[in-house]
């Protein structure tokens, strides 16, 4: 048997730990939209972001959507979560991993035409690591495991 004074101390520790955990969980739950790094194109389409507000949008670069200007670093592409699209304008150096079918997070503002004017574009690579040979073999078999699961809306 545990001695009574020790049991009392252990009980107090458990009480404090449980109390603090509940407080932390409630705080994080209340702040969930602020903690999210980016909005999905569906959230943008639903008007969750005010006009002129600085925010980040995350999605896949839609296949065939990248238009690179001939005489400058300006680029236009479409970010998608496979439900809604957001057109993105950007001028600058893109990360090495930027390509069609790649996940990106862009920071900027929506203009009056609903086009996202990005000041920064980051590449969001996924959690599937494989050699080029494996990737080629899988593509030949018609499987694309590298596909991002960009959520169209937050689950909570």
């Amino acid at each position, binding site marked *: 048997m545990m001695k009574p004074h020790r049991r009392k101390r252990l009980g107090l520790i458990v009480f404090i730990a449980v109390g603090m955990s509940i407080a932390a969980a409630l705080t994080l739950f209340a702040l969930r939209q602020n903690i*999210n790094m980016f909005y999905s194109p569906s959230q943008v389409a639903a008007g969750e972001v005010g006009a002129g507000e600085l925010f980040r949008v995350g999605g896949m670069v839609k296949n065939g959507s990248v238009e690179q200007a001939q005489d400058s670093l300006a680029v236009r592409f479409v970010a998608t979560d496979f439900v809604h699209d957001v057109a993105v304008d950007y001028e600058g150096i893109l990360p090495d991993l930027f390509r069609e079918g790649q996940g990106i997070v862009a920071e900027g503002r929506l203009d009056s035409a609903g086009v996202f004017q990005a000041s920064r574009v980051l590449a969001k690579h996924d959690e*599937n690591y494989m050699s080029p040979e494996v990737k080629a073999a899988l593509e030949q078999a018609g499987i694309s495991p590298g596909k991002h699961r960009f959520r169209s809306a937050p689950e909570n």
Partner: protein
Amino acid sequence: MAGRWQWLHRLGSPRWFYATTTRWLPWLAGAMALLLAVGTVWALLYLPPDYQQGDTSRILVVHVAVAGASLSFFPLMAVAGTVTLVWRIKLADMVAKNAAPLGAWFSFLTLATGSIWGSVSWGTWWEWTDSRLVSMLFQFFLLLGVISLRAALDNSATAARACALLSIVGCINVVVIKYSVQWWNTLHQPPSPISMQVGSPNGPEFWVATAIMAVAVYLFLALSLILATRNEILERESKAQWVRELALGAT
């Protein structure tokens, strides 16, 4: 009444700990050196480059191993802290005291390797809006806080109890770090689901090197913590007969 918890007091004897770890040290050091060499050579020479990231992905072997180990410090300090608070066993606090600076170093290395990796793959060294990055930075600061708290309190028994309580509460942040990439939108990718099949995404050719490195890093952690704790024992027990005999015998 010789209670059910008697074993804990036997295990908590500094003298027993010192004698036992003297026997363990060569084995721990040997295993660590071997696995560290195998893991490093594997990661640099035999790990296939990733189809997207090329050779950049090799850093994951170090980053994942160090990051995983850095998450073990708060749970370890919380268990030691609970033993300190409930049973008042001195050895537990000696372990907790030396775990904090080591944990800060592990957290720093996690942030540094991740930052280097991110600068190449994401196109940014740091993002304040990514909850995985910020919660890991928070762990680094929390560990600095535990170290400062102990240094700030003059009474060592009070300091031990205060640090124990902070370590227990700090475990909440470990859960936040772990699940941040699943609960919220982040730039950081979620954990990779490992595959047992060679030639499939996240197959053994990718994760075996990381697993070897992870074991090596945990051995390094154990070795560092044991060595630091042994110093602490000699310092705190310097008046004990067995320490005097040990010191005289060594010279």
